[in-house]
Structure formats: C-alpha cells, structure tokens
C-alpha cells in the first residue's frame, strides 16, 4: 500500500515537479487560447460560407468540414509536423500543433454554428429584414445571439474536446502539460507527475463538463 502511494501519490515528488508542470500548463493554456479563439472565429466563417446561397462559397466549405472532421487529428498533426518538411516547409512544433488542431476544430465549430443558425426561425430573419436591417445587421443583432445561445452546450463541449486534444501535442515534443509530466516521470522515475497532470486536467475540465450538463437540462426544459 505504502509502495502504491509512493509510486502514484508521492507528494514530495509532485511538489518537486511542480515548476516543470506549471510551465507545461502555461504552454497548454497558450495552445488552447490560440486554437479556441481562432477556431471560434474560423468556424463561424466556415459556417456562414456553408449557409451561403452562393455555390462557390458553399462547396469549399462543405469540402473543408467533411475532410477535417473525417481526418484523425493525430494524423493531421504528424503530417504537418513531419510530412511538410519534405516539401521544404519547416514549421515550429507550436505552429504545427496550432494549425492541425485549428483545422480540425474550426470544422467542428462550424457544424455547431450551422446547427445554431438553422435553429433560428425564418420569421426572425423576415421581421428584421422588413424593418430595413441588412443581411449582415440581421445576422449580428438578431440571429447570431439566438443561435449561439441555442448551441452553447455544444460549443462548450467542443471546447472541452480542444483542451483534451492539446495533450496530443506531446508526440511532437511540444512541452505542454502531458509532455512536462512525462518528462518529470522519467527524471524522477516515479508516476506521481502523471497523476498530477491527470488531476490538473480534471480540475479544469470537470466544472466545464458540469456546466454543459446544466445548460443542456435548462435548454431542454
């Protein structure tokens, strides 16, 4: 029993690895910020293109969302990081990870936005247009606020997925939280840093997951 505690819940080892872990957490936070913010913006543009009456906007958007939802994110990441150099394109680990997950996630965010925009009735568009608002004004002031509220749980769950996804960055040696924990494990020859990393993910994401369930129940009511 004591052996188990020493191997997995060794507080002194956790304390010793904490600075390394915190710098890993900081990297995870930066990665999440980039992927989430750009993904939310890019996803919206892709969704709007998808709903456009213009074919030349709609088709590329459909191809984009189909491809990047079908492609495993790890395959995409390794291709960008290790494959592109063969074409003479060298890319930093951070940029490779951010780009791979951005492509993947804006495709998912786009689908969520699309469902949200379609959930707002045609009558809202017509009422706003009949008062002289332009298409863009209607979208911004009338449709998007309702659309986003309707799909807030899905946007949030997708965001949780982004945070979890960033742990894949450890395979290209980007020193995010999981990579830092694994490094600490190999230095200390003890699994406690991995447990600590798992706990950090849980502490951050559990409340968000709870929130998603609360929103879903409220929207269903």
């Amino acid at each position, binding site marked *: 029993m004591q052996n188990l505690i020493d191997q997995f819940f060794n507080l002194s080892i956790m304390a010793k690895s904490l600075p390394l872990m915190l710098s890993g957490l900081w990297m995870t936070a930066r990665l999440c910020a980039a992927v989430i913010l750009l993904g939310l913006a890019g996803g919206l543009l892709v969704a709007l293109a998808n709903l456009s009456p213009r074919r030349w906007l709609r088709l590329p958007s459909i191809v984009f969302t189909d491809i990047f939802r079908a492609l495993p994110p790890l395959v995409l990441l390794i291709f960008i990081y290790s494959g592109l150099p063969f074409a003479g394109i060298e890319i930093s680990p951070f940029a490779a990870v951010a780009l791979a997950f951005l492509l993947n996630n804006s495709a998912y965010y786009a689908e969520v936005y699309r469902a949200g925009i379609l959930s707002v*009735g045609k*009558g*809202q568009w*017509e*009422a*706003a*247009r*009949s*008062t*002289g*608002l*332009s298409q863009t*004004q209607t979208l911004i*002031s*009338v449709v998007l*606020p*309702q659309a986003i*509220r309707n799909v807030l749980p899905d946007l949030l769950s997708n965001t949780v997925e982004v945070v979890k996804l960033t742990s894949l960055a450890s395979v290209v040696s980007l020193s995010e939280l999981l990579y830092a924990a694994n490094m600490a494990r190999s230095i200390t020859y003890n699994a406690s840093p991995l447990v600590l990393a798992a706990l950090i993910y849980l502490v951050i994401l559990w409340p968000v997951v709870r929130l998603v369930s609360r929103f879903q129940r409220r929207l269903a009511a």
Partner: protein
Amino acid sequence: MTNRPMLEIVSLQKRFGDTVVLRDINLKVAQGDLVFIIGPSGSGKSTMLRCCNRLEEPSGGDIIVDGRNIMSGTSRDLDRMRLKVGMVFQGFHLYPHMSVVKNVMLAQCKALGRSAEEARARAMDMLDRVGLAHKASAMPAELSGGQQQRVAIARALALDPLVMLFDEPTSALDPELVGSVLSVMKDLKAKGMTMLVVSHEMGFARETADRVVFMDGGLVVEEGSPEEIFGAPKADRTRAFLSRVTR
C-alpha cells in the same frame, strides 16, 4: 379615392417553380386608405402582401411605393425602402433575446441611424400608443400573444412607415386577445395610416375598411366598398366564399 396612391401593385406575378401563385395582380392603395384583402387559403393573398416589401421576390410586375418603383435599385435601396413599408406578421416574430423596448429600438438605431436616446424616446411613445409602455422592460416571452403583436406593431411604427402591411395579424391569437390588436389597428387608421390588411376578421373589415378586395386563384376577382362586397357581391366565387366564412 381622393388621395394619391401610396402603394401601387402593377401586373404582379409570382411563380414558385411551375406553380403560379399570383397571375396578374393590379391594386392601388390611396394615402390614408385601409384596403382589406380576403380570399380562400391558397388564393395568394399572403404572397401578394409579402411581395410588397420583397420578402417574396416577384416573378414579374412592379411595386410602387410613394411614386418610387421598388423593383429597381440596389440592395441598399431595398433596405431603405423597407423602412417605409412596415410589416406585421401572423407569428409576431419579436426578438426573444431583447426586452420589449430594445425590440422597438433596434432598427431605429441600426437602419435609421437614430441615437439610443432618440430611439428610446420614440420607442416609449409608440409603446404608449399601443398601450404597453408599462411593459417596456419585459421580455417578449412574458407577454401574451396580443401584447406581443402590439409590440410588433410599435416596432414597425417607430420607423415612421408610409404604409403598413398586416399579414393575418390576429390569426394566431386566442379569441379574447383579438380585440386589443384590432383596436390598435383602428386607431392607426383613424390617425391616417395607409394600410393593406390580409385577415379573416370580416367584422373589422365591414367597420373599418375603405375597400375590400376578394382574391382567388392568384387574381383579384372583385373589389369594392365593404357594403358592395359583403352586401351585394357580384362574382359567384365571392358569394360562395362569403357564404362559407360568414355562415
């Protein structure tokens, strides 16, 4: 008809694919007149109304508002024209995420460019006119259907339209709430608003309309004063329709 036409519909046609909904509609609404459209469902009356501000794109013909043909011009011109043509829908379509007063302010600020204070003052005037100033900070979901429809009327009025279009404004209401909406419409008429109304409220038409238009099969079958249409309809189709709805 002493006044100049405020709204003119000239050989209006509308097809959805192979289905012809409006064959050839010609109609003039003089300034200050209330023209009431009746007809069986599927006769094209709502489509005709929705063509008047191009929510439905006509397949042919012209719509002339205050002497200006709205079928020509850019999409900016169309948005500006829509400010002049207020519309009230069967389903109210208030913005559920905004308070009542914000509903009435939105287009004033975004489309007319009024300042927030100016728009708020105007909104409160209009809400007062429809008897709902005390509900200004309520959310639409807290109001009854009749109250929501009166807010929708205030929202359109706040833009100082030249013409108001009503698309079955009381059809979605419980019977006891219909009266409050009709009395707001009657008040509007008394104040000189030009109105084109599609509705089944025959009693209201008899009392308030200057002219009644009977539509069937995408055509205007007959038009005249309420006395003429309800008292002595000439066309068989009008008679058949009226005997069905008035019993």
